[in-house]
């Protein structure tokens, strides 16, 4: 599949914002939230801003952005429609929580529900985003529960790294240390679950063949012409178009930057009692996640590609 930059930006930035909201929610419920209400407010506003950036990015994927409201209609059957409903709802929860934190009313009865709402909203949004890919049964690299699990794990990991960085910035050392420790554990787990999907994909055998695609029963069936010379939507949308070198390097880069490098930096920060390490880990991991998402698309082999093998 062709990686679309709008979707890469949308899913990586929104994922980190969802993770950040989850970290703040769990921290509030477990009693190690940032000491200052202003720090909580700042982090929630950052999460809201990241969500708005991702929302804007998602519009760049549409041919007719002005009609986007229609996308909320088919929630009974379409995971994308469900995502279109859950995303603004989650933005509203996060922004509402940010407002409550800014006004200093977090101790009010109704405000106690906001962390729970944020956790439920973030999980639902990850489910919708992951299922958009996992429900396409013939894109075999995606059609597996690991797709959803990895959206959750990578979002939580980047959210924890973001929380560590923001905690260090706000001078919330205790919160940042907790978040940093969580980031180490979850990033290692995310490395493991993403590794599982890489292993699975490496072993996949495509169900569709040139024989099943054409119904021609012969041991050897090869395409001699795809029917046009200048390319079409089918040749642009479903092939990543990068060289094997770029493809292999993207995988190496994301394994390093999304997992190995932030883990090492955070581990050093944890051992030396310097959660400010998160400030270095955050931008590097974000780059790594962009590469991860690029690879996620590039690795998916769409069965329609069988029909577009040869120009002549």
């Amino acid at each position, binding site marked *: 599949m062709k990686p679309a930059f709008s979707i890469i930006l949308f899913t990586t930035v929104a994922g980190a914002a969802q993770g950040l909201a989850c970290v703040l929610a769990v921290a509030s419920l477990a009693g190690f939230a940032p000491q200052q209400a202003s720090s909580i407010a700042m982090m929630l506003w950052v999460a809201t801003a990241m969500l708005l950036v991702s929302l804007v990015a998602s519009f760049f994927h549409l041919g*007719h952005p002005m009609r986007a409201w229609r996308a909320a209609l088919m929630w009974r059957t379409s995971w994308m429609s469900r995502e279109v409903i859950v995303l603004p709802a989650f933005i509203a929860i996060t922004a509402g929580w940010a407002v409550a934190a800014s006004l200093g009313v977090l101790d009010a009865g109704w405000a106690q529900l906001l962390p729970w709402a944020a956790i439920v909203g973030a999980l639902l949004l990850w489910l919708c985003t992951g299922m958009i890919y996992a429900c396409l049964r013939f894109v075999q690299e995606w059609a597996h529960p690991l797709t959803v699990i990895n959206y959750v794990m990578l979002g939580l990991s980047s959210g924890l790294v973001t929380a560590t960085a923001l905690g260090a910035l706000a001078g919330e050392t205790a919160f940042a240390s907790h978040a940093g420790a969580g980031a180490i554990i979850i990033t290692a787990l995310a490395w493991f679950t993403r590794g599982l999907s890489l292993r699975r994909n490496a072993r996949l055998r495509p169900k569709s063949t040139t024989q*099943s695609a054409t*119904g*021609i029963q012969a041991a050897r069936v*090869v*395409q*001699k012409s795809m*029917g046009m010379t200048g390319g079409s939507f089918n040749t642009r949308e479903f092939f990543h178009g990068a060289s094997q070198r770029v493809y292999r390097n993207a995988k190496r880069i994301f394994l390093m930057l999304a997992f190995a490098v932030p883990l090492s930096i955070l581990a050093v920060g944890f051992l030396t009692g310097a959660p400010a390490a998160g400030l270095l880990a955050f931008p590097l991991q974000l780059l790594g996640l962009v590469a991860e998402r690029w690879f996620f698309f590039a690795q998916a082999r769409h069965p329609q590609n069988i029909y577009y093998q040869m120009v002549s």
Partner: protein
Amino acid sequence: MSQAEVQETLAKQLALVIDLNVCVGCHACVTSCKEWNTSGAAGPLADLNAYDEQPTGTFFNRVQTFEADSFPNTQTIHFPKSCLHCEDPPCVPVCPTGASYKRKSDGIVLVDYDKCIGCKYCSWACPYGAREFDEERKVMTKCTLCVDRIYDESLAPHDRKPACVKACPTGARLFGDVKDPDSDVSKAIRERGGYQLMPEWETQPSNHYLPRKITTSACGRSQDEFRLGDFLRTKSVPSATAEEGTR
């Protein structure tokens, strides 16, 4: 789960049956499809760089060419491909706006261009690559089975067929209701082993293909046994005098 709404069986299902025995790969169906559909009320189909190095545009129908088996038994097979109007179309339930739909009355899978937001998700959900995004109108487009033609009462009844069917010089494209057991398409599927593409995904395509039948040699021998001397011996040789006479 997401398929639940479209599971019901329709009483009528219009479809194409394509005879791979007689398709000669002339692309007349491609150009007639383009001509008809670029002239309709929905607006022209994009043609970008039409006279430059990389011409590209929206087509609802393509003719591809495949080669089967190995020399000396190679077969060249011309293979037209358009939307298969699946009975369980995976492209329909994923559409977030409801722009993609399958008509209950005749089973044609259509896109409402006014509702399409151009997210391209339906094209990801089609294993056949039947949908093409129109780069000028910014909406998803696809074969309509010439829905603006087959019901047009101002046309003579025998012209109420998709443009590709009318254009085919060898009659390789049959059109009809595959749910009517007495229709030409149903008989062709039944009697000539009509099959569906990528059955492994259980989309139940309505369009069927009639398999290539390998014809045997006129002298009843396969190619590798053929000897010219044997062949000539089976023919009556004109007498030498008659040959002289014709000169």
